[in-house]
């Protein structure tokens, strides 16, 4: 198995420190804890959304930025990201890392969880479908398909974010240990989209 990281989509190597940012935050938790106490996903996203939105006066996009709009957007976005780490983590490593970077005109979020190697190809295939098609078309196609079949997952999280919130996603897969691949999901938003 190759030990090299593979990246897809809107990937950016973000700084490990706060240099050049308005603020930089990091939290580490555990996917089993999020899955077992499901409301921790919602709680964590509401907390970080509110925490981050307090920086709204520091954004500079040529107009005031509504703090409540930032907070609501981030609460939806981060909840989708935390839910995915809770639902789809697997293998021996349960660590989940949340990290955010605020710049004057944009925000970047990165959430890391771990999966079994056998799960990678399916996820990559889905990512390529997401990145290679029009989100609007894909969104309605997915809903019609979901209505026809009784699928377990709905597959709408990333799509709603791309379509309705103009979020751009990047993904990285890094083999970290025997039977474990780290999945980093990056979400990028321009403040002017809010």
């Amino acid at each position, binding site marked *: 198995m190759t030990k090299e990281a593979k990246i897809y989509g809107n990937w950016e190597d973000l700084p490990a420190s706060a240099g050049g940012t308005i603020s930089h935050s990091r939290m580490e938790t555990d996917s089993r804890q999020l899955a077992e106490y499901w409301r921790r996903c919602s709680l964590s996203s509401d907390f970080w959304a509110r925490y981050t939105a307090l920086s709204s006066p520091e954004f500079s996009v040529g107009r005031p930025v509504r703090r409540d709009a930032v907070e609501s957007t981030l609460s939806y976005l981060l909840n989708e990201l935390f839910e995915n780490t809770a639902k789809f983590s697997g293998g021996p490593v349960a660590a989940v890392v949340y990290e955010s970077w605020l710049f004057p005109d944009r925000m970047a979020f990165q959430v890391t969880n771990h999966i079994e190697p056998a799960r990678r190809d399916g996820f990559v295939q889905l990512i390529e479908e997401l990145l290679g098609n029009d989100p609007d078309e894909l969104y309605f196609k997915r809903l019609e398909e979901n209505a026809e079949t009784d699928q377990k997952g*709905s597959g709408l999280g990333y799509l709603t974010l791309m379509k309705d*919130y103009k979020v751009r996603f990047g993904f990285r897969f890094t083999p970290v240990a025997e039977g474990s691949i780290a999945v980093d999901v990056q979400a990028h938003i321009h403040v002017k989209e809010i």
Partner: protein
Amino acid sequence: MAVQEIKGDEYVIEHNDSSHVVGFKGTIRLQTTDDYAPITDLLQKAHGAAGKGKLTLDFRQLQFLNSSGINAISKFVIAARKEDKVSMVVLGSQDIYWQQKSLSNLSKLWSKVQVDIV
């Protein structure tokens, strides 16, 4: 008049079977498609009770809904489209950001759905 209700830790859903209004309040972010089944059942009942009249889905007090919830509501709208009986009205609030962003998608699923963001 009877009111049927589903209550969770952070939300309440009420169906009033004389006004044919289903009202959603709080935050609905359930874990699995199965967790949404009781909500879908309530919507189906409300749909049946409305006959060929008007069915209103009132989201004005729903602060948050996750994508699995958007899926459940959308599936219900598609099912109603296939039956083509009720006329559906969806009420949203201008003050709730996700509703501005996403509620109008429902009328793209079925053009007869009237979405009012008030």
